[in-house]
């Protein structure tokens, strides 16, 4: 049986763990609020961008932009977004599992698959499994800027235009609520073919200024950037939310443990007092005799 001092030491240790996890939760909570705000600010822009592109693509004729053209799939690139840091529950594990499953499926269907990773967690994961990565970006989670999205989008667009890849899939955590993140596997390129027949949308006869070609040339790549940027922000908010609830759980577990250890401590103390008392009473009885 553990001695009183052992139990006391354990209580101390668990208490300090609980303090740390609690502090981490607070940090995650404040980072989360900031990330969430940025994400909410971004949403209307990304939505409107889609509206414009839908209106335009639905009304334009012929092949307007290479990134909108669908060609036979052979080489597929999977872009996985994870975090740089751990201690955020199943956040990274979920995404990597989903990504691996998807990659295996694609391989089974006979496609050439390449992987690109954002975040140290994904990079290490693929390295451990000796899975080759075309490109790895690390050190951006926590301080995402539009420039990061531009850089990633730029490379992807270039590879797509060179016909090195025929399809790009984005795997990331979508922010649903503080307690729920959803793994999303979405096609980034080619941009979903939007036809006028779809959703029985209205066909407009647009006047373009300067020209249709120029508008598409700047709008389409921009849309790719925006989509990546949005995914980065969603992933960021999800990460902090996941960390928040993971740390909340850890603090809870530590407190439960402190409770049961204290109980054990009191029982042991009581037992030793009773034992001492019995000894004294026994001694007194013996002397009387």
């Amino acid at each position, binding site marked *: 049986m553990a001695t009183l001092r052992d139990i006391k030491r354990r209580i101390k240790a668990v208490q300090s763990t609980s303090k740390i996890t609690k502090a981490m939760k607070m940090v995650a909570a404040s980072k989360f609020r900031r990330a969430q705000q940025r994400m909410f600010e971004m949403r209307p*822009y990304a939505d409107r961008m889609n*509206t*414009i592109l839908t209106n*335009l693509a639905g009304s334009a004729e012929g092949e307007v932009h290479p990134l909108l053209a669908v060609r036979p799939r052979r080489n597929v690139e999977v872009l996985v977004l994870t975090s740089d840091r751990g201690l955020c529950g199943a956040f990274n594990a979920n995404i990597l599992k989903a990504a691996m499953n998807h990659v295996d499926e694609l391989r089974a269907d006979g496609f050439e698959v390449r992987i690109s990773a954002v975040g140290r967690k994904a990079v290490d994961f693929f390295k451990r499994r000796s899975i080759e990565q075309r490109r790895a970006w690390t050190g951006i989670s926590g301080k995402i800027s539009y420039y990061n999205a531009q850089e990633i989008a730029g490379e992807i667009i270039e590879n797509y235009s060179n016909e090195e890849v025929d399809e790009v899939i984005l795997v990331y955590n979508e922010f649903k609520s503080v307690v729920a993140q959803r793994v999303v596997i979405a096609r980034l390129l080619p941009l979903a073919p939007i036809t006028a027949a779809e959703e029985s949308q209205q066909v*407009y006869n*647009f006047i373009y*200024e*300067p020209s249709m070609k120029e508008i598409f040339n700047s709008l389409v790549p921009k849309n790719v950037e925006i989509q990546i940027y949005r995914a980065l922000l969603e992933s960021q908010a999800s990460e902090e939310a996941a960390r928040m609830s993971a740390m909340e759980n850890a603090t809870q577990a530590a407190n439960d443990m402190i409770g049961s250890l204290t109980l054990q401590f009191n029982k042991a103390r009581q037992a030793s007092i009773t034992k001492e008392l019995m000894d004294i009473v026994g001694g007194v009885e013996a002397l009387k005799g």
Partner: protein
Amino acid sequence: MTEGKLLLEIVTPQGLIFSQEVDEVTASGTEGEFGILPGHVPFVATLKIGMLSCKVGTEVKYFFVNWGYAEVSNDKVLILADSAERSDEIDFERAKAAMQRAEERMRQAENVDFKRAETAIERAVTRIQIAELKRLK
């Protein structure tokens, strides 16, 4: 939506900054300034650094727009800008300081990203103009 009105929406990556029914919109496109009245044909244009103004009744509102797109359809004007500010949000002093910095860079002639300095000056000048316009009123 009210008949004979335009719904003007200005969105940037920093959020929806303006959404209101107006009577008339004037914006600076890359090919020149254009005006939009209710009943305009569907229209798409790219915007340069410049001023955007809208009329609500007799009141005129001014905005600073930093690159972007304008889409007009169904009496709805959608402005997607890299950044945009309402005229009363423009920081006059900051714009002036930015202009001085850019001019300084230009003067140093060597190792200067000329294009960048030029856009910085353009931005600052436009901001100052819009802010002054507001002051005169």
